[in-house]
């Protein structure tokens, strides 16, 4: 990934100095180990701040929505795919955006690391040769990276962005992965077991809406949960209201979700929201043979129809 980092900086420098963009949106080192934070660079001399590693987990497409500037954006596979979806939905002006495609080797799931640390404070972390070295007061750990990769990255097929203007680094070949195995496991259970499963999972939800706020596709000016005229929606943490919130949100991103995993990463209560989102993806794949974010022209399934759509469920 480090040669990609150099290439990203070069590309950013070139774009800024040739005045092709006003701003570069990328990642910079965070203040804590294993953390990066989104950064906005408008001067060539700030370009060395840009980093590219397994901790660059923010989906930067969120920052492009509704902006007027010409922006360069560092995008991994999932970022580029959400940019494609938002562009199709006219939230991002394609001509204003230069996508610096970057190869991704899978993000580190901080929650998995945190669980492993059992409350000990992490002071230093390095990732090298597929291993994570963690250091803190009185402990030192060397962990295999593959056990601490985000679940969305484990089955990701598009680690190389499908859409980009400049590519930095070397491309990662597309891998065949059984991306719906988790969903299939749940589907194999009985209706009652699934209900209990989701009830227990969503009971933890505190309705902070972090999942919505971080989602690049949740760009509505007034979200259905915030609307008060009329009130669509119960705002309590009553389980029924909470479950309906997650259901309706899943429905809203159906056919648009690119499984970047941002919602799961943002959840402070550790709810695996991907279980629901992934199902919407599976429905779209099976019923309409559609994968979101791979093209700028293809209309998503819920935006069109065909005379011979499947209707086995209709009497």
């Amino acid at each position: 990934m480090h040669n990609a980092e150099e290439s990203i900086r070069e590309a950013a420098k070139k774009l800024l100095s040739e005045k092709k963009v006003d701003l570069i949106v990328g990642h910079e080192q965070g203040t804590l180990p294993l953390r990066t934070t989104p950064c906005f660079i408008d001067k060539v001399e700030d370009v060395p701040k840009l980093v590219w590693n397994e901790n660059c987990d923010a989906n930067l497409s969120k920052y492009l929505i509704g902006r007027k500037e010409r922006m360069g954006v560092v995008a991994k596979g999932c970022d580029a795919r959400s940019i494609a979806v938002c562009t199709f939905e006219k939230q991002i002006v394609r001509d204003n955006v230069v996508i610096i495609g970057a190869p991704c080797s899978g993000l580190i799931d901080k929650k998995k690391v945190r669980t492993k640390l059992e409350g000990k404070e992490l002071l230093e972390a390095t990732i090298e040769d597929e291993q994570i070295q963690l250091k803190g007061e009185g402990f030192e750990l060397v962990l295999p990276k593959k056990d601490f990769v985000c679940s969305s990255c484990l089955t990701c097929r598009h680690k190389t962005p499908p859409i980009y203007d400049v590519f930095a680094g070397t491309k990662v070949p597309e891998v065949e992965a059984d991306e719906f195995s988790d969903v299939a496991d749940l589907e194999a259970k009985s209706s009652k077991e699934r209900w209990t499963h989701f009830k227990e999972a969503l009971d933890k939800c505190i309705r902070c809406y972090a999942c919505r706020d971080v989602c690049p596709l949740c760009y509505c000016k007034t979200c259905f949960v915030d609307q008060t005229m009329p009130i669509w929606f119960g705002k309590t943490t009553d389980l029924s209201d909470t479950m309906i919130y997650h259901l309706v949100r899943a429905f809203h991103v159906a056919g648009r979700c690119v499984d970047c995993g941002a919602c799961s990463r943002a959840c402070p209560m550790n709810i695996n929201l991907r279980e629901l989102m992934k199902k919407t993806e599976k429905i779209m794949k099976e019923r309409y043979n559609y994968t979101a974010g791979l093209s700028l022209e293809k209309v998503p399934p819920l935006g069109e129809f065909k005379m011979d759509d499947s209707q086995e469920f209709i009497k």
Partner: protein
Amino acid sequence: MESAGEGWTPKILAFLCNWCSYAGADLAGISRMQYPPNIRVVRVPCSGRVNPYFVIKALQHGWDGVLVSGCHPGDCHYISGNLVARRRFAVLKDLLEYFGIEPGRLNFSWVSAAEGEKFAIVVKDVVEKVKSLGPAERLVKR
């Protein structure tokens, strides 16, 4: 809605499109066809008018089942409202059933204005199915 107990019969909310299914229900009525009295009808301009949220909200309010019925594909008064609705409901039904709502609570049908008999059969089927499932409990706000 009153809670389940002795002598419980399901209550089913039916969204019927103005141009076909509502007229079909009307035909069933004027032809004196017998069907269970468990449905309450909401007349909508088109099955495409039925927001998936209506269906979810009905379940939250304790309706034991929901029926959405519209014109046959190709017969929509608004040309394609039912075709748009068909995709929407396919996703909704798959998603709700994955979520743990019993299959059978959500029902969809195409009933034309001439199909009074079909309407009676559809309602009978839906009521039987929901009866065998028992009163709705999942997703109901207490």
